[in-house]
């Protein structure tokens, strides 16, 4: 059990909330330390896992379709699977 690891885990959870200014507090129930024998803090994932579990907030240029841009991103990153968060209405 590692309390430093737990501290980093909670710090990461707080940063997830900060991402969208979510100020709702987490309350403790059966709080305890987390083991360092398995699992990884998301920001500490080795690069290929980090990418595989990652998300990009991409400012898509007008012109290419979302589908095309996803294909480019997959090629650039060397990943086989990627998706996008929805297209805009036609005529946008």
């Amino acid at each position, binding site marked *: 059990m590692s309390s430093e*690891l*737990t501290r*980093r*885990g*909670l710090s*990461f*959870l707080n940063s*997830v*909330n900060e*991402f*969208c200014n*979510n100020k*709702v*507090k*987490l*309350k*403790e*129930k*059966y*709080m*305890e*330390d*987390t*083991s360092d024998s*398995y*699992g*990884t*803090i*998301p*920001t500490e*994932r080795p*690069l290929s896992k*980090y*990418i595989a*579990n*990652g*998300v*990009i*907030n*991409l*400012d898509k*240029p007008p012109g290419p379709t979302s589908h095309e*841009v996803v294909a*480019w*991103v997959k090629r*650039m*990153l060397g990943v086989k699977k990627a998706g996008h*968060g*929805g*297209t*805009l*209405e*036609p*005529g*946008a």
Partner: protein
Amino acid sequence: MHSRKAYVCVMQLHGDVSADELKAVASEFIGPIYQRPPVRSNVRRALRIRNVNSIEVLEVRDRLVLMKVESDPGTYMRKLCWDMGLVLGVGAHMRELRRVRSGPFTEEKGLVTLHQLSEAIYRLHEEGKDDLLREVILPGEVSACELPKLVLRDTAVESVVNGAYLAVPGVAMFSEDLKRGSTVAMFTLKGELVGLGEALMDAAEVEKSERGIVARPTRIVMPHGVYPRAWKGSAAEGPGSS
């Protein structure tokens, strides 16, 4: 899944209207509105209700109106502009559209261009440094930012990954906005997203209970085997177990 969208659009009016008329009509479209998706759309063209949270007229130049609109997902800005034009009496259509928010994703945090992505990859390949890439790519967990959250004790994780319902003894932490019936994001104590679930208790209930089912998993994201299987009967319970 993303609860709120925001757009900035340019509406082209087909006639002249006063600033007051424009503001008055804009405020009429705030709240629930009827919409039928346009002919060119990917969805069934059923009449449906969508909520428009706000419409802000940012700038007006001749017959061009720059507006910022916040709404439910699936609200067509093109139809909104068209209908506003009808109510204004002169007609209007949408000329330009930019989505500026999708759930937790806004222009303010972490927005990157393809160029920045390309540079980050270049830095990795040429200099061996992944620092820029880890800025451009965010951990997928941020997608769950807006949701109520449950943090699972280590012993509950693998059971839930296998579809077991999460019981009170398996809960390390819970967010104050936990509400029965709503979607909840379940995390490990390290901050890894286990998956999404449906909350079966409110925060207040979790606080005062020592047993009972807190959530049922609906969409597991974490692979099997990351966390070890705990003994049956501890932390998480499956449906029908003692």
